[in-house]
């Protein structure tokens, strides 16, 4: 009997040790799994702002915003060398918020995955979405991870006089729905 009892005790001991090991390994691995997500979101907000500031109007192949597109024909866009961010700033400086909103929506719709929401601000004024829905506001307020990227932007408002607008603080907010 004492011999049997000893065996049982050691088996129990081994099981407990194994459990401790399994729980330890589980805790360690599960903690690592959550890490990459903030990086992705942060990259997305930077990506959007970099895309807007590095892409020029002349580089766009877009029926609405590109050279020869709708806004070009309407005379709303006149400078092919403007970056998209400069064009947004120019719309803001010339008090054309509706055009700015449509422009941002058009150029960014393919950039941001649908599970994310975002806002574009210029000089502390929201340009996209111009009038956020209640759902949008609630989503932003309740998000656990709201990331932002900022840049300065300015440009030429009148080529004849070389007058400049800005500099404005342009900001992108991005979060998961």
């Amino acid at each position: 009997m004492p011999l049997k009892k000893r065996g049982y005790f050691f088996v129990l001991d081994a099981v407990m040790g194994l459990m401790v090991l399994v729980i330890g390994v589980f805790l360690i691995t599960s903690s690592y799994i959550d890490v990459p997500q903030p990086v992705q979101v942060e990259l997305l907000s930077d990506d959007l702002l970099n895309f807007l500031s590095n892409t020029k109007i002349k580089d766009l192949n877009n029926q609405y915003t590109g050279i020869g597109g709708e806004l070009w024909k309407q005379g709303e866009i006149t400078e092919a060398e403007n970056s998209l961010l400069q064009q947004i700033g120019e719309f803001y400086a010339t008090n054309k918020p509706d055009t700015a909103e449509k422009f941002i929506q058009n150029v960014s719709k393919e950039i941001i995955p649908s599970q994310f929401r975002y806002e574009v601000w210029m000089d502390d004024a929201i340009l996209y979405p111009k009038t956020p829905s209640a759902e949008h506001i609630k989503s932003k307020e309740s998000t656990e991870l709201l990331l932002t990227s900022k840049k300065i932007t300015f440009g030429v408002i009148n080529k004849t006089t070389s007058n400049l607008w800005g500099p404005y603080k342009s900001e992108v907010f991005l979060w998961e729905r």
Partner: protein
Amino acid sequence: MGKMSLKKKGIFFTFIAITIMTLFLIVFTPQAEISLQKDMQATSARISSIDNYVNDLETRYFETVLRATTYKAILSLTYYINSTGFFIPNLDSAFSEVMLNGTINNVPIDSITNKKIMDNSTLTNWSSRISEAAKDTLNVNTTIILINVTAFQTKPWDIDSMLKINITVKSNVAEWRKTAIISATISIEGLHDPYYFVNTNKAYANQVKKSSVEFDQWNITKVREHLRNGTYVYWQNPDAPSFLMRFTNTITSSSCCGIESLVNPNKISPADQIDSYADYILWDTTNNVPCSQLYNITNPATGGGIWDEFKYFKLDLGHTIKYNITPQDAVKTC
């Protein structure tokens, strides 16, 4: 007793195992690493963001500012010559002063030209604005020292400007120090030629517009259009001065950038002058073409030439050949 001590030993080993595992968990728990990683990511993101800003300062912001300010400064200097009626003795220092401070000889240039061009638009104004915007946007302290700025030409239809600056950007994570040379190019098309202003006592304004005629396509019809439109031409190996040389009345040849126009006799007084009507020859008192080498661009015998519209218009032999004017449209003046 023997059994008990054996049991106690087992518990002892279990406690050791649990203690070791606890220590193992504490030491290798990812929380600390994640926190450090997060901190590193935040710092890295901040450094990357400010690094982009420093690069943008050099490659975008100041390039845009320099281009706009150069245009404004040249425009202001043209109006300044128009207001004073005198050439500028030293273009480099005048240009630099206007670009940096908006003044000329310590007097605001806008007050002389009566045009609001440089007001709040100097390089100094824009440096302050960018620094303030950077403080507000990225929470960094930017110090920009404007060392010098110059204008020159390497192409006939463009003005290049070059700005040397020292940039210091300080943030809570790092500090950037950089000396940068920024260059920008503006077109001279559309700007007034100061040489016309001074020589006609502001009576004749001519804006620079490049002629579209190729060098081997000239004929009398195109010369007529050239005069009508006041357009400018660049000849290979030119004798004419560049646009910037016209600010200082430096009427010597500029191999890279000499441009010329033809003076409309209807817009000067007296209209009939014994000289070539190429602008840089007509008003250069040291370069008078003898009457014997001049051609009236008319021919009463054939009815050719352009005196029906531009009476008294004359050219020297060199220009008569350059513009491909044949004896059918020209006769010797003397």
